[in-house]
């Protein structure tokens, strides 16, 4: 058996309360590595066409990777997937913390939650043995309350993931939380977990994870830890984490502001890294083996009320700060804490509430309809609306179905400024005059997310008006960045501390005994990329180019202010970008992988599902 893995697929049928284990196919390790690769591969086999995202036939998939938990910097990542209730297509999300290694030590490389329990349960996994606890009494509890409760009941050494009231009440962008602030935030994986009546999963694992060559794994890890901590980028960035980029983002006009009406915000200095360090951060809070760590723990404050919370990181600052017109870092931290305890994805929550504020200010929605005036800059109104969303009250019930559904419900042209791609709310980069970043959003396999390709710097460095080389860059990033999700570790030592990404090749052989070149690893990533595209093809009727469109705002109006004020690309120009991208990928003009491309990547099994 190839080492470096937990070894098994653990399938838990919630309907019959039955669990069964089987070995992970060795071929999967060679062709998909683990993590996101296993999620995509299992998704194809497990989740059939016609599945209702909130029905018992949908499944929650969770997978660590071969690098998970290793003594190399930042190895605490867990990948999760499910058919997304937000988009109807391939959905996944990624979470840090310490759950992933624990799952692997329980002997699990892929956890499948299927069926649905009749009444709320907490699933308890101890070294692969599964038991169930009645969770009815705390089904609607906040995430913090439930994680605290389970730590008390089971013991501090257990690793626990929980959902909050947002998931329990069917909000389509509900997250799964772990370790009091680590979130699998995007695509509604928490909502799917709730549809199975699973309030929490607790895991404890004590087994060795076998290593091909422990001595050389240790030596490679020592070298990497040393390198990370000596990077100049590390020393400059470490004290602040991702908020370090706020001043740059605002100066370049890429910081979403007041529902993406513009990309610069007055008072951005009050949201930057040093301000957060002075006013919010108390301690660093790291994932497994992280020398960096980007996690900052501290208190949010709003009108004298305090809330302990982790973060906010850049995305939350962008969506809960500038995008809501709020420039008080303590208030942003407070909002972040509210989202975390309710189990709301802070990106989507900030996005939909910003849309509701624009609707209010422009007269599309009234105070009566919304339950209160929703003005940009009003943090208390945002707090109240987050609660309405999470508990399904009033207009919150509409917003909880995502910005695409809410705008369809309201109509009146509000769809023009509903900022989503494929039904997933766009994250923290205003990209209408940044072609590589816009293309990153349009082609991201889960919808409007930055995680697969982040190319703003490339746009600024190579000319924002220029299209040449942009599709190439996006494709390269879409292979490199998700590779970390397949390996089960974090890409921050590369993207934040400046480590050479190719240096990660050096771990695969000592850990697993498998040998891969850098290009071979990227080929795995390309395989997974084409597979996730085919999964959305299979599940979304008519899927193709029409689903890669930008929100109208991005092609119809320029930003109000900033370095690129007034500028935007046309629909024809965006089509040109997509044409270049599809051609380079070997896809049809409608953006579908060709049978030849699928064969080349060893994905012949999904060729018959090519979209009609």
């Amino acid at each position: 058996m190839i080492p470096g893995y937990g070894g098994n697929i653990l399938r838990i049928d919630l309907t019959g309360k039955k669990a069964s284990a089987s070995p992970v196919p060795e071929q999967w390790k060679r062709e998909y590595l683990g993590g996101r690769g296993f999620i995509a591969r299992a998704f194809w086999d497990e989740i059939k066409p016609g599945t209702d995202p909130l029905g018992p036939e949908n499944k929650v998939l969770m997978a660590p990777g071969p690098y998970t938990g290793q003594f190399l910097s930042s190895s605490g990542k867990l990948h999760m997937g499910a058919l997304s209730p937000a988009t109807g297509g391939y959905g996944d999300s990624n979470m840090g913390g310490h759950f992933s290694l624990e799952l692997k030590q329980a002997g699990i490389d892929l956890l499948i939650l299927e069926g649905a329990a009749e009444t709320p349960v907490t699933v308890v996994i101890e070294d692969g043995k599964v038991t169930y606890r009645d969770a009815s009494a705390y089904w609607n509890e906040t995430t913090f309350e439930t994680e605290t409760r389970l730590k008390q009941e089971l013991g501090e050494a257990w690793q626990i993931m929980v959902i909050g009231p947002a998931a329990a009440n069917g909000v389509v962008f509900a997250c799964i939380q772990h370790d009091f602030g680590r979130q699998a935030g995007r695509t509604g994986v928490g909502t799917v977990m709730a549809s199975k009546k699973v309030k929490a999963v607790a895991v404890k694992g004590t087994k060795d994870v076998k290593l091909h060559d422990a001595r050389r794994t240790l030596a490679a890890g020592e070298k990497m830890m040393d390198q990370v901590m000596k990077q100049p980028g590390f020393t400059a960035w470490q004290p602040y984490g991702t908020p370090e980029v706020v001043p740059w983002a605002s100066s370049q006009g890429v910081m979403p502001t007041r529902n993406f009406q513009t990309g610069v915000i007055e008072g951005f200095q009050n949201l930057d890294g040093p301000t957060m360090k002075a006013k919010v951060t108390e301690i660093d809070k790291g994932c497994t083996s992280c020398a960096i760590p980007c996690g900052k723990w501290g208190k949010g404050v709003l009108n004298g009320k305090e809330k302990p919370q982790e973060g906010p990181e850049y995305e939350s600052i962008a969506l809960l700060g500038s995008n809501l017109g709020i420039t008080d870092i303590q208030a942003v931290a407070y909002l972040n804490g509210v989202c975390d305890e309710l189990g709301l994805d802070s990106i989507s929550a900030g996005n939909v509430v910003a849309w509701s504020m624009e609707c209010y200010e422009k007269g599309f929605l009234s105070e009566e309809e919304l339950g209160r005036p929703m003005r940009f800059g009003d943090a208390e109104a945002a707090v109240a609306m987050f609660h309405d969303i999470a508990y399904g009250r009033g207009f919150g019930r509409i917003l909880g179905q995502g910005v695409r559904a809410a705008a369809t419900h309201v109509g009146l042209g509000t769809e023009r400024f509903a900022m989503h791609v494929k039904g997933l709310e766009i994250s923290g980069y205003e990209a209408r005059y940044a072609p590589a970043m816009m293309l990153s959003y349009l082609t991201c396999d889960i919808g409007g997310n930055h995680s697969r390709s982040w190319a703003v710097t490339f746009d600024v460095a190579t000319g924002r008006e220029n299209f040449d080389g942009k599709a190439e860059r996006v494709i390269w990033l879409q292979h490199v960045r998700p590779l970390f999700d397949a390996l089960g570790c974090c890409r921050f030592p590369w993207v934040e501390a400046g480590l050479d990404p190719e240096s990660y090749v050096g771990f695969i052989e000592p850990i697993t005994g498998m040998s891969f070149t850098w290009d071979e690893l990227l080929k795995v990533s390309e395989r997974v990329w084409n597979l996730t595209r085919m999964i959305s093809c299979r599940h979304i009727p008519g899927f193709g180019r029409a689903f890669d469109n930008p929100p109208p705002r991005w092609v119809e109006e320029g930003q109000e202010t900033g370095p690129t004020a007034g500028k935007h690309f046309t629909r024809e120009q965006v089509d040109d970008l997509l044409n270049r991208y599809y051609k380079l990928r070997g896809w049809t003009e409608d953006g579908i992988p060709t049978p030849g491309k699928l064969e080349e990547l060893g994905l012949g099994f999904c060729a018959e599902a090519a979209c009609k």
Partner: protein
Amino acid sequence: MQVTVRLEGHLREFFPKLHEPRTVACERPITVAEIIEAVGMAASLPSSVLCNRVRVERDHVPADGDELVLLSPLAGG
């Protein structure tokens, strides 16, 4: 006077000619912004600049023999 300029992160990929540290020679003391432009980059592109490992603003004037590190905007979680 001479100032050494070193690039970190994605900037190294975008400016392959600056993969190795570059020495900028100038007759009079000049600002960080002018030095960045002298190596062929927009002064606003780096997210932060370190002078001898200490963060400085664009209007800082380095001394002879100082080392500037230009950091790429590091984000995109």
